[in-house]
């Protein structure tokens, strides 16, 4: 097993990579929104736009043998983890070439080969599962980390507290990543939590915890590398709160009555892609030509994903009951 470096090396290549991944998520999801209005994608569609720095930053610290448990707002995590864009798009089209054969949709992306355990649409519901994956690793003496993503809304769920306590009590290698975007659907953090400092809750479980600016991809990556290095070293869990913001509506049905436009504009003004691009250009780490090249590559990838999804096929209805249980039992 190789060890990811605990430090961020911001050379030109890495800056390009961070920007490329964030732009991939942004453009992919912009296309998803468009396809939703064309009714190519149905159901709930939860966009990650504005929060890209979290998934991109955290994934830099993970290795292929590590596991990921994500939420229903997980397109970005799946993309950065390496789930092919075409198979994600095909999933949203409900096609059998999708990463869950069209059974899951936007909220339930799975990919066994990349240890991507979904796509959980019950707030907090992935947290016990992540704890159990880490329990298996600990009991089998595998030096792997399970990264568990969830929103700050999960902090109100019992499963959050039960999982944090279990992971800390049993010293399990879980990286808990709270994507604090300030709203649980439409309920503001201060309307739902007596203690709005989420990382303080983790500290209450004797877990190492820190809060970072989730709009700054470099800060997220640095913290994630520190956290993952600590987890590999000690085997104990680590809590990372990334303070971020969702630019788009909660889902495509959300008229956003609960927040005003000025607030959204304040946050978009410090958006992760905008900020990183400005910094990297000024620091001379990237040039406009790099950005143009990235946009071109991403546009091709997104177009390819759409073409793949369009060309996909629907699973025969005869297979509806397939995989409710194993086809063969001992």
């Amino acid at each position: 097993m190789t060890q990811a470096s605990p430090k961020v090396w911001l050379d030109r290549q890495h800056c390009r990579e961070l920007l490329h991944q964030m732009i991939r998520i942004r453009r992919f999801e912009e296309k998803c929104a468009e396809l939703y209005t064309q009714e190519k994608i149905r159901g709930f569609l939860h966009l990650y736009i504005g929060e890209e720095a979290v998934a991109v930053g955290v994934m830099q610290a993970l290795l292929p043998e590590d596991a990921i448990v994500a939420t229903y707002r997980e397109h970005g995590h799946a993309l950065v983890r390496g789930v092919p864009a075409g198979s994600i798009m095909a999933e949203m089209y409900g096609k059998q070439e999708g990463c869950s054969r069209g059974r899951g949709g936007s909220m339930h992306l799975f990919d066994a080969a990349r240890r991507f355990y979904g796509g959980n649409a019950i707030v907090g519901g992935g947290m016990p599962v992540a704890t159990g994956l880490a329990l298996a690793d600990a009991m089998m003496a595998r030096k792997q980390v399970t990264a568990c993503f969830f929103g700050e809304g999960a902090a109100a769920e019992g499963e959050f507290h039960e999982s944090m306590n279990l992971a800390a009590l049993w010293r399990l290698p879980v990286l808990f990543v709270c994507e604090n975007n300030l709203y649980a659907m439409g309920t503001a953090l201060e309307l739902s939590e007596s203690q709005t400092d989420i990382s303080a809750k983790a500290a209450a479980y004797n877990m190492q915890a820190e809060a970072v600016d989730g709009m700054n991809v470099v800060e997220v990556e640095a913290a994630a590398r520190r956290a993952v290095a600590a987890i590999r070293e000690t085997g104990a869990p680590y809590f990372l709160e990334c303070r971020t913001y969702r630019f788009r509506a909660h889902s495509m049905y959300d008229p956003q009555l609960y927040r005003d436009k000025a607030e959204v504009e304040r946050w978009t003004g410090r958006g992760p892609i905008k900020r990183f691009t400005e910094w990297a250009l000024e620091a001379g780490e990237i040039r406009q030509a790099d950005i143009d090249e990235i946009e071109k590559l991403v546009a091709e990838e997104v177009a390819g994903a759409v073409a793949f999804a369009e060309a996909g096929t629907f699973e025969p209805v005869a297979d509806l009951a397939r995989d409710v249980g194993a086809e063969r039992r001992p």
Partner: protein
Amino acid sequence: MTVMSYRDAVRGAIREAMQSDPRVFLMGEDVGHYGGCYAVSKGLLEEFGPERIRDTPLSESGFTGAGIGAAMGGLRPIVEIMTCNFSLLALDQIMNNAATIRHMSGGQFNVPVVIRMATGGGRQLGAQHSHSLEGWYAHIPGIRVLAPGTVADAGGMLAPALDDPDPVLIFENALLYNDTADVDWPASVDIDHAAVRREGTDISLITYGGSLGKTLAAADQLAAEGISAEVLDLRVLRPLDEDAILATVARTRRCVIVDEGWQSGSISAEIMARIIEKGFWYLDAPLARVCSKEVPIPYAHHLEEAALPSITGIVEACRAVLGR
């Protein structure tokens, strides 16, 4: 043959599974230092240590979900939930994760977890410790639901449940733990089929779990009255052994279902529906059932007795169906 209790049989099965497969471990509330709420795991902590006989905090959802995750991570957990009433705190994990993930992931992931829990009333424990919710769980596609009603099944169902690539729930009626029987050990049973526990020709009694003993006793009383009752022990509540149900009804042409769950929307209702759908022409009389009364199970002894299926109630239901 070995004389042993239902409790010993479950413990023996856990021990053998842990001895033969290092991936197997037991976790739940008070399974270790306390020795198990019903003393099922007594002595196992000393034998296997706290890693594999793992006491958990009172976090049903957390540790059940951890069992699901550990199963997906390559282990074979046995999760013990103290009573099925408490399992409601873990229902999210059982229903939304264990039962769905294989299908929802397009067959990429499976959840080979075994979840055991005590069920049933009759011990004056009141309305939050006495219910029979196995019929509810049998509603859910993606899980197998077992209800061992005999010592041999208590000992023999765990191994095939652990071999099952999908989640298996085992409901142990708490009144059975002290039952003893002379059984073949190691017990070897399947987890697919119902079993005819008593053959008969006049009427079929279909039951499972904690009601099996009462139903067999009722069959004895009926025999004394010249009524020959066949007793079918379902053993597996999901998937139902429909062939066995239809076969017994075809033999006797009359049927009473005995189920400790409430009757509205219950497993007994499902059995009746299947008989009506596929065995209607076998029937010589309307179906009947004996279930718990539609009340929260009360504390007072006489009220609790009145709420649960009784031998007398079963006998009377049979007489009514036979017009005697």
